[in-house]
């Protein structure tokens, strides 16, 4: 049974619809991310769950209880903010103890809980430090410990890593996931960083313009985007305007080049479709003067950028299409700029959307 439910949440600010009837249910212990560009409504949704905003309509249900109109301090929800949320006048331990003091825990039990939480987030050595004596990453760990100390029913994280360095960000996001699984707490995470969302979540809700574009596992979101927005927003995606050439065998016509694509089987010939192709699905072949074999797109490498393990190549196809391909850096020297190549991809690797 669903533990946290958002039912038809609507919120309008003036003429701007921040949320246009969003419904999602989370199982107990599930980790869900709201992913989307700024202004998509993800933070509004989180603030409605927290109780800092009232929805215009719709309900928030936690553990079978309707909490829509309940004050934020009576919801038993732990929250981690973007930054600067630690109380500057209190040490790390006092910050973590704050919620327990409010709940009138006896001091011995409280101290034990504070030590336990600070140990979980790896900050046992910083108990007596004030926020200004902690790095950004450490501050967010304390904030996480503080939110978890009260044994909340739901944990909310509002872009908790956005103010941190890249390296700390990766470390901390793995740690957030570890702690979350360890405590089995139902979690909603808001981020605009797709890598973050895909790497830590059980499910991701991609949001756009106040609505949910797609809800699914990270693998589904990445591998099978169901809308054009998701396809463009998640990862790098080649988008090729094309037409179904043969709906029986599965082939498309990309500006005159016929290429096999399984996903168009069953579609009427001549139908306009959008072909989606991940850069890592593409393989390249040299074109050494000989005419290309059919089933590929011939073109020329126009740019090369080294990204570490892989090298990203830009290819201008002869039919006018622009493509991006990722190749292992070890073999990338073979494809220098101006090199003539043939682009191929497995017929089952491309996804097709209606135009």
């Amino acid at each position, binding site marked *: 049974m669903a533990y946290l439910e958002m039912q038809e949440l609507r919120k309008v600010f003036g003429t701007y619809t921040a949320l246009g009837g969003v419904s999602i249910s989370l199982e107990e212990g599930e980790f869900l991310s709201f992913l989307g560009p700024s202004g998509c409504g993800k933070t509004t949704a989180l603030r409605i769950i927290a109780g800092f905003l009232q929805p215009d309509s719709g309900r928030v249900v936690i553990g079978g209880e309707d909490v829509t109109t309940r004050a934020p301090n009576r919801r038993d929800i732990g929250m981690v903010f973007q930054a600067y949320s630690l*109380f500057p006048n209190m040490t790390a331990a006092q910050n973590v103890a704050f919620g327990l003091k409010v709940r009138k825990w006896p001091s011995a039990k409280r101290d034990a809980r504070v030590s336990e939480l600070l140990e979980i987030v790896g900050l046992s050595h910083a108990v007596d430090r004030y926020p200004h004596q902690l790095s950004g990453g450490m501050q967010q760990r304390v904030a996480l410990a503080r939110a978890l100390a009260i044994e909340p029913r739901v944990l909310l994280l509002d872009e908790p890593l956005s103010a941190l360095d890249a390296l700390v960000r990766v470390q901390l996001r793995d740690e957030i996931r570890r702690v979350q699984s360890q405590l089995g707490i139902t979690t909603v995470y808001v981020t605009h960083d797709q890598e973050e969302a895909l790497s830590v979540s059980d499910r991701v809700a991609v949001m756009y313009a106040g609505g949910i574009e797609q809800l699914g596992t990270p693998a589904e979101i990445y591998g099978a985007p169901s809308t054009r927005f998701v396809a463009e927003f998640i990862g790098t995606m080649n988008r090729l305007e094309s037409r179904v050439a043969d709906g029986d065998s599965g082939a498309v016509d990309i500006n005159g080049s016929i290429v096999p694509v399984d996903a168009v089987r069953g579609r009427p010939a001549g139908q306009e479709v959008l072909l989606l192709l991940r850069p890592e699905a593409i393989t390249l072949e040299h074109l050494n003067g000989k005419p290309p074999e059919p089933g590929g797109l011939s073109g020329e490498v126009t740019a090369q950028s080294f990204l570490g393990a892989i090298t990203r190549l830009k290819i201008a196809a002869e039919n006018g299409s622009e493509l991006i391909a990722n190749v292992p850096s070890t073999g990338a020297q073979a494809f220098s700029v101006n090199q003539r190549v043939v682009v191929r991809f497995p017929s089952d690797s491309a996804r097709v959307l209606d135009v």
Partner: protein
Amino acid sequence: MKRRMPISGVVVLLIGALYFIVPIACTIKFSVEQGHQGFGFDAYRQILNDPTFRDTLWFSVQLALETTIVTMVLMVPTVYWVHLRLPKARPWVESVTILPFVIPPIVLVVGLFDFFKSFSPDWVLENFVFTPKFLVTAYVVLALPFVYRALDAGVRAVDIQTLTEAAQSLGASRSRTLFRVILPNLREAVLAACLLTFVIVLGEFTIASIALYQTFPVYITTIGSAEAFPAAALTVIAVGLTFLAAAVFLVIGRMGMRQRRRPPIGAAMTSVAPAAGATLGEA
């Protein structure tokens, strides 16, 4: 790298210092002159033995304390609330707080008087409006521009929205959030506002004089128009008291800072957040 101050800077600084120091030095010298008998402390003796000196000073200190308390109780929650919930109203509140600069003291006193007289029952008139305590209402208005600005700067320096929401999500009530989380972080701003209010009241002459109450500044003026040497001595005492008040506030502020920077060992589990009442009481 140490940079030496340019000559022009030294000159400007010197002129500035002279502007303040020369009059005070002259007053001090004048206050210890005894005509043909050389120098001595007769003037001071005369002032300190004058019961009116002690009465008016105590009266002004009381007024200053009361004004400070009333102002803080009114303004701290107001500034906090305006920032948190009514950010759009900020320019309006700001312009309202400037009004005391524009309104002449006579208008302020007469206006307040008429306003309170228009609706107050007799016992309020007798016990408040027709007593010297009524000056507090005018002084609260007078202190507004300074207090608002001091508190506003303090509130801007911390992210009160996030702190408030963090406290709420942890289960804290509104009053707990204000007293345990917000106020301790506005400590310096509140102290600065208290000092300003206190000093304004200690030095306020016009309104007290119009209302015909003998406060300390009114007493200084009376002495000043009658006796030259004691007036100088009184001025020196008044300046000294003002410095003393400022020093007390500074020390209180420093104590808070030290506590925050270097917490005593083992104090981690005890709250350092001072109760707001205590902070206000100290003022």
